[in-house]
């Protein structure tokens, strides 16, 4: 949001004219609030960039806040016409539609953007939105390369915007219970966290490259990636299974499960000293992320180890059964609890399942009653609520840019070690791989003009 002096005549007329219809809906919050902050009682004006798939889910979530009176939805944007039309219908009258997100960034009446684009766009969207003064909610994983993460952190800091990355597991009610249970020493000193996940899929129906469907801007879908022809198996949704875009389960769900681990271990802002990965490759098709995977992250000072394992379904830890009264509207049933982490301490173990929209803590953490003098931890009011609060207060979000880049780096480094077939050394202070020139080059990826950081 901007100072009212920065609103030009056209924007003022637009706002004033429409205000006759709906005053709270169209007055930009910046008109009423202090520079750089949305007023405590003002609506936050959002725009949505990428509104298919998960982006559509985010739009639906934000609509609930609009209905509650805390948000205006000013615009939606997508490079797929079908998805854009659907989002316009979903958002309702008065919402502007854009093909190119940069139109949104130029609008001074928009305070914040909600980004649900494919992963390879996150770095650019976040940096560009920060540079134009927008607060940002962006889907996880934060970034696809180490360089993107660094640029995102720098842009968020420089422009003093509130960034929330969508590793919403941190904001789940049971994440709070798990966190509180662990920091109070219930399983003693934790020296190992073993994350588990079911395998990345193999493409059972590979198809040749073809012309993109009408209505899809393939050039802009690719954005910063090197050009390649359109392929049905490399687009909406399934981009997750390609290393250059989604990065497979480790980057998709690792950004959830390892996010909880880094937070609960008090390890945000730290990083491993070595990363070593092995994995099995798909036997056919375009998708190239590891099907099964085994990654070991070694941390020093304090010393601990985290592992990420994609394993066959029959090897996964069985989820703890829940009684019907242990489920309520707040605790959603996890449809497929095939991922989570085992925390190994010197006095016992603890498991959580999920880590994204659903996070289940083992019963012993849910039933634990904190004694007098027990440590408490931050309890998020909800992932969006936490973001909205931080937009207004200037505080750090629960999954802020630094923390999110740190978690994404783990995922990126795991994949790099896998494709290179060797152990990597990481210098957290310098944010660089050391002693491996090829791996150092691969920390960044040249970007197509004009889609660059």
């Amino acid at each position, binding site marked *: 949001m901007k100072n009212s002096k920065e609103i030009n005549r056209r924007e003022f007329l637009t706002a004033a004219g429409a205000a006759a219809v709906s005053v709270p809906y169209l007055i930009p919050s910046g008109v009423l609030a202090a520079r750089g902050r949305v007023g405590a009682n003002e609506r936050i004006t959002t725009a949505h960039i990428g509104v298919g798939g998960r982006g559509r889910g985010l739009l639906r979530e934000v609509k609930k806040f609009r209905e509650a009176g805390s948000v205006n939805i000013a615009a939606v944007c997508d490079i797929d016409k079908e998805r854009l039309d659907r989002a316009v219908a979903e958002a309702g009258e008065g919402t502007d539609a854009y093909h190119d997100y940069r139109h949104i960034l130029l609008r001074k009446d928009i305070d914040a953007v909600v980004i649900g684009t494919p992963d390879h766009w996150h770095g650019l969207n976040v940096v560009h939105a920060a540079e134009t003064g927008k607060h940002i909610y962006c889907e996880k994983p934060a970034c696809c390369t180490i360089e993107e993460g660094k640029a995102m952190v720098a842009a968020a800091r420089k422009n003093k915007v509130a960034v929330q990355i969508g590793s919403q597991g941190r904001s789940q009610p049971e994440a709070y219970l798990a966190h509180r249970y662990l920091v109070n020493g219930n399983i003693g000193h934790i020296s190992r966290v073993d994350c588990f996940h079911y395998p990345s899929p193999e493409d059972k129906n590979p198809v040749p490259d073809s012309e993109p469907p009408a209505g899809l801007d393939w050039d802009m879908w690719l954005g910063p990636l090197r050009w390649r022809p359109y392929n049905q198996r490399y687009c909406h949704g399934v981009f997750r299974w390609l290393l250059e875009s989604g990065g497979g389960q480790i980057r998709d769900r690792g950004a959830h499960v390892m996010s909880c681990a880094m937070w609960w271990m008090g390890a945000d802002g730290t990083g491993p000293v070595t990363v070593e990965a092995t994995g099995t490759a798909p036997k056919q098709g375009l998708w190239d992320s590891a099907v099964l995977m085994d990654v070991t992250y070694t941390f020093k000072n304090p010393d601990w180890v985290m592992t990420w394992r994609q394993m066959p379904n029959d090897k996964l830890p069985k989820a703890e059964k829940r009684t019907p009264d242990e489920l309520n509207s707040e605790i959603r049933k996890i449809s497929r609890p095939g991922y989570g982490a085992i925390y190994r301490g010197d006095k016992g173990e603890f498991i959580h399942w999920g880590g994204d929209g659903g996070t289940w803590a083992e019963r012993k953490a849910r039933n634990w009653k904190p004694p007098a003098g027990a440590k408490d931890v931050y309890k998020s009011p909800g992932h969006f609520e936490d973001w909205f609060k931080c937009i207004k207060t200037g505080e750090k979000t629960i999954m802020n840019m630094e923390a999110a880049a740190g978690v994404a780096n783990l995922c990126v480094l795991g994949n790099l070690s896998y494709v290179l077939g060797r152990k990597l050394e990481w210098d957290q202070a310098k944010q660089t791989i050391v002693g491996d020139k090829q791996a150092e080059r691969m920390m960044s990826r040249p970007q197509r003009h*004009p889609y660059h950081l």
Partner: protein
Amino acid sequence: MSTNHLKKASLAAGAVATVTTTARAARGRNRGVNRLINKLKSSDAETRTEAWQSAGDIGALAVHPLALVMTDDDLEVARAAKRAMWKIVRHTGRPGAIRARIAVVNKLCGLLGADQPVSVRREVLWMLSEIGGTRAINPIAELLSDEHLREDARMALERIPIKGAVQALKAGFEKAPEQFKPNMAQSLRKRGVKVEGYPCQKLVPTK
């Protein structure tokens, strides 16, 4: 027989032995390449996958034969060949493998000519972006004038962290047609070079 004659005879015998050993090793390596190619062309997905995953050690000798298979009519065979080539690039990029890397880079540079399909040349440019050094600069820079490949060539040069790459980008900028100068300016700025004109376009809506 004099001592000198003995020495000469001994050296000659040694040379013959060396040549024989080298030839035998070369035949062995060629057999390794042939085996790799045959397995990549297998109709069995498992065999193809095992083959491309084991390609790293074979190195430079396999580069040109693999390039031929990268455009095979069978998509899965072509894909396996491409992955084998990448495996070689990733393996030879390991710390300490300087000779192996140079040998692979030289072979890759030999695939940038107009006799190769655009799809192969594009892939090779990205391979060189990871392991290419001084020797790769000129062959890559020549493609800055190729309408189909100049964007990939620009990005490859941008990634190679040596001064020669920056010099090539500067020279390419001077020669570039007007519509490609903003692309070149993007790379030069990324490499810390101040560029007059051609302002950054990243926040300018175009669609």
